[in-house]
């Protein structure tokens, strides 16, 4: 027996409500203009809506959505995707409100600068770990790689980042949210 349209919509509303902030956050942390994050978010959830039953459930759903968002973002960066037909109001609201907020950041500017000095591959793995709070298995889901491949890559990237920051004795920056975890706490817990 096929589910009704109402039931489909209810399922998607739940997905949207549970993951909107995370996907918008993923996009906002990676684009140059807030309104671009609106495009990435709109296209990501459009894909999720169309391929709803491909989506895993439970803890695997978030990495799956990040994986979709990552591909949408890649298209966006290549300029292959026109401005989304959806989400006009969201774009306007983002362009108005995001520049006002500068306190609740996931990392210090110097850490972000140091991450830029890593290879693009190391940088992406670290961003998913430090910004989205994902572990190796989830990062592997997002990137479509085996955990056995991601785990050493993440370990090495963290080592390199730590080396880059070795000369900086200052404490971590302000973190008003416990997700993603602060860099220093992460390094302390995992590496020492």
């Amino acid at each position: 027996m096929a589910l009704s349209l109402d039931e489909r919509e209810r399922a998607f509303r739940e997905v949207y409500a549970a993951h909107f902030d995370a996907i918008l956050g993923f996009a906002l942390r990676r684009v140059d203009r807030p309104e671009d994050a609106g495009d990435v978010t709109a296209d990501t959830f459009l894909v999720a809506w169309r391929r709803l039953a491909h989506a895993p459930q439970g803890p695997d759903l978030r990495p799956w959505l990040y994986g979709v968002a990552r591909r949408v973002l890649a298209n966006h960066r290549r300029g292959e995707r026109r401005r989304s037909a959806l989400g006009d109001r969201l774009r306007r609201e983002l362009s108005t409100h995001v520049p006002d907020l500068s306190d609740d950041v996931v990392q210090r500017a110097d850490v972000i600068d140091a991450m830029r000095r890593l290879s693009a591959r190391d940088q992406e793995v670290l961003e998913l770990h430090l910004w989205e709070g994902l572990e190796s298995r989830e990062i592997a889901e997002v990137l479509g790689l085996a955990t056995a491949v991601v785990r050493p890559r993440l370990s090495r990237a963290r080592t390199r980042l730590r080396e880059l920051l070795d000369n900086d004795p200052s404490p971590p920056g302000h973190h008003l949210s416990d997700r993603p975890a602060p860099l220093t706490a992460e390094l302390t817990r995992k590496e020492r």
Partner: protein
Amino acid sequence: MIPKLTDDAISRLPLESGRAELLEEIMSTVAPDRQTEPLANPAPRRTRWVAPLAAAAVVAGLAGGTLWWQQHRPDPDGSRHAAASLGLSQGRGIVLDAPGWQVDSLTGDGLRFHNGGADLEINSYDAKDYDSYVVDREHIVDPPAPGEPITVLGRPAQMWAYSADDHTAIREVEDGHWLEVRGSGMDRAAYLDLLGRLRVVSEHVFEASLPDSYVTENDRQSTAEEILGKIQEVSGAGFPDGTAAPSFAQGDAKDRYQFGAEVVGAYTCAWLEAFDNAKTHQQAEQAAEAARVLGTSRQWPILQQMDVDGDYPEVVWDYADQVVAGQVPQGYREGLGCP
């Protein structure tokens, strides 16, 4: 530069109107391609894919398909007759006889072939779900309607178009299973052409068709022993004294890179542990032996092969260099996933 906001901060942004409007806009577009029932299933499909493969609906891919097919093509009439009469019964497999197409994944949502910007995805389902999925697909078009009748692997199927370059087809039930084949990034003609290039083959042919990079379940242990044997030829040592070689008969790895990481990782972990232990207990002789073994890692054949495809070997070599320099590498257990 936009500040790197936390998700928590984003949840407090005044975006209620835009957020709500986007949701309604998305749901006003074409109906989703799947009914939502699978979301309620306890396990995601990706983790269960291998089971139906082994049980009945054997679906497998052929990298570099055309060349292989030309070399191993069974009698054309016989193979097509088999495809039509046997479908996906026990011990049969499917290959894709099309140049440029590679197996993209045997996990994920099922079997997926990839070629540039195009994908062909095949999923197998139980017969009990057939009717509900057909009804669901009928809602792809407005008003709902049966799909265009076509033939897939010698059996009737219905085809619908999500868009000009995105099509799906449901093949009728056979032996308790049915297939859905979705092609994205190709137009209708290309999709239909590709469907015509799917072949049903015997299990024997299917096994023979697997690319070298694929390690079958039956081959896991012997392949692992072969890999370890070649390492041992270079290093002159098996696993450290007191450490038994683990069994590799079962595991998730499918392609040779992942499988190689599993095997060489176990060997490397064992020698890193031995070095760590020897340093802790000031056993100079054992530490020297571990350093000597790991010091040969740049000559381990499997790592040299893997080096072409990824950076796992670099991690092993980096750890080995540290050991040779007398240091226990920091975080090596996490880095290599040591037990």
